[in-house]
């Protein structure tokens, strides 16, 4: 158990991030906080991928001209996550744009207040 905690602790971080992110998204009434929660959730997944690439005593995957030099950490998940981060940034941008739009229309970014405002529409 202890060994698991010391060697695989990053996975606990993953679980914690996913949990925190999901909780904030569901529980918070504030749209901006929801988006932050979404980002935390995604970060959990990023960490998951990066952790999976880890290799004990692995080196950065730069292959020498003669070959060999391993073991390397896996480069693939890192590349993937680079892409995923870009996707995440664009999503955040669109989401924040929508929040700005909502604020302009309704004067609030709070979900409950918004419901009250819309009930009067």
């Amino acid at each position: 158990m202890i060994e698991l905690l010391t060697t695989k602790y990053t996975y606990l971080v993953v679980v914690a991030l996913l949990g925190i992110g999901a909780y904030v998204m569901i529980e918070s009434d504030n749209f901006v906080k929801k988006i932050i929660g979404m980002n935390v959730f995604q970060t959990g997944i990023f960490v998951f991928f990066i952790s999976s690439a880890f290799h004990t005593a692995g080196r950065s995957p730069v292959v020498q001209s003669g070959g060999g030099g391993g073991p390397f950490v896996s480069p693939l998940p890192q590349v993937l996550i680079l892409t995923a981060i870009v996707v995440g940034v664009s999503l955040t941008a669109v989401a924040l744009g929508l929040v700005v739009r909502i604020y302009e229309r309704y004067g609030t970014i709070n979900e409950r207040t918004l419901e009250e405002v819309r009930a009067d529409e």
Partner: protein
Amino acid sequence: MSDTLLPLLVALPLLGAVLAVAAGLASERAAAAVTTLVLAAQTGLAGWLGSQAVLDGPLSVGVGGFVAPYGIELVVDGLSAAVLVLVAVVSLAVLAFATEDAPGGTAFYAQYLLLVTGLSGMAVTGDVFNLYVFLEITGLATYALVASAGTGRSAVSALKYLLFGTVAASLYLLGVGYALMATGTLNMADLATELAAAGYDSPLVLASFGFIVVGLATKTALFPLHTWQPDAYADAPDSVSALIAALVSTVAAYALLRLIYTVYTPAFFEAVPVARDALVAFAAVSIVVGSVLAVTQSEIKRMLAYSSVSQYGLVVVGLAIGTPAAVFGAVVHLLGHAIMKGGLFVAAGAVADLTGARTVDEYAGLADRFPVLGGASAVLMLAMVGVPPAVGFAGKWYIALGAVRAGSWPVAVVIFASTLLTLAYFALLVERMFVAPASESVLAATDGGRDGDDDTDALGPSPPSASRPSRRALALVVGAAVVAIVLGVVVTDLGTALEPTIDTLLSP
């Protein structure tokens, strides 16, 4: 040689989006023209490559010269060809309506083409991570399009959709991560063999399957993961509703089919029967609950949205049952539903433009005033109910045949009952449209309301031109009705064309 043109299916609309922005600097009409041209070219390309794939077997190419399984592979087989052609044709057709109805703006056309990029990408890719990227491109474009109505409501719905969609895509990504950990590959074909080698009962493989299915089911909007969908459909501009109702969930369901049969293969279902049973049960519940919710709606677009929840349930039931007949039925219903639902959303949009009617009650007496529009919508609704010989019947027939052959009796009962469930909400609407006294909004739209006493009124010369449905909308709705019937009639030819693909998919 046609293999090398595959990347164009994605590159063309993507480039088109940039061109549309550039053209938009000149004028908005130029952007519309560019979009039309690009989509026409896309339709031609998809048709040509699709027919190649159907006639000569699957096409594939490694992007950038990286060979599979290391590079990203694009693959077009019969199934993806059908989806590609559907995406191209429907987006081109809906564009005709969008240029009239849409909020306009250069950004709209750019987003429109980005959506086509994402959808086409999902259809052609042979790589699970690449699928994630296209899933998100599709999502981003859809969120922006939903919000393009410019209203506060649409922004809220788009944000809700964004949060749901992102979590769904993230779960899918998590599933991909597990699969990657289990096998070290991302290529679909390669994953199929590597997953088998890893053992289907390995927790990594099981977890990856669970996350991927939940993620894609959310995008497909199966109950209870559908809650984003009615808001998004209802608050989007009418043309966007038509487009996304016809395509977005359809392509997500296609992705689910692709993942289940190309990546996990039928052998996985045999090794883990509980996975199949759970998926079937999940989808069957969706059929029933979606219909019940649809009956309770008063707003037309929300009703149509809940109807989609139910219809995708039927599609997923078909693909989960997994006999050749059922999978073919699922594909037929997927394509047919896209046409029928797209047509109905266009009709709803046209009616709203004409009369402002948006609820079931306001539709009363509509068909007397707009007989062609009403008649074509009724044909589409009845087709969805499953009245032969339209495509709704064909899909249901094959799915039911598959369920019965597989001996899944409770599912068979749900499938048969789904006809009545669908009837429950559409019959209500048909009754309002055809045999109820005209509502105020309908009366107002037809020149202050003429009396219905003249028995030839309904089919005589139409009311003044200001209160006639636009030609394009009318053509689209009638066209959709015709296609729905023709598809139903030629379904066996479609079967012959797709048979090799489905056989390959289902061979262990």
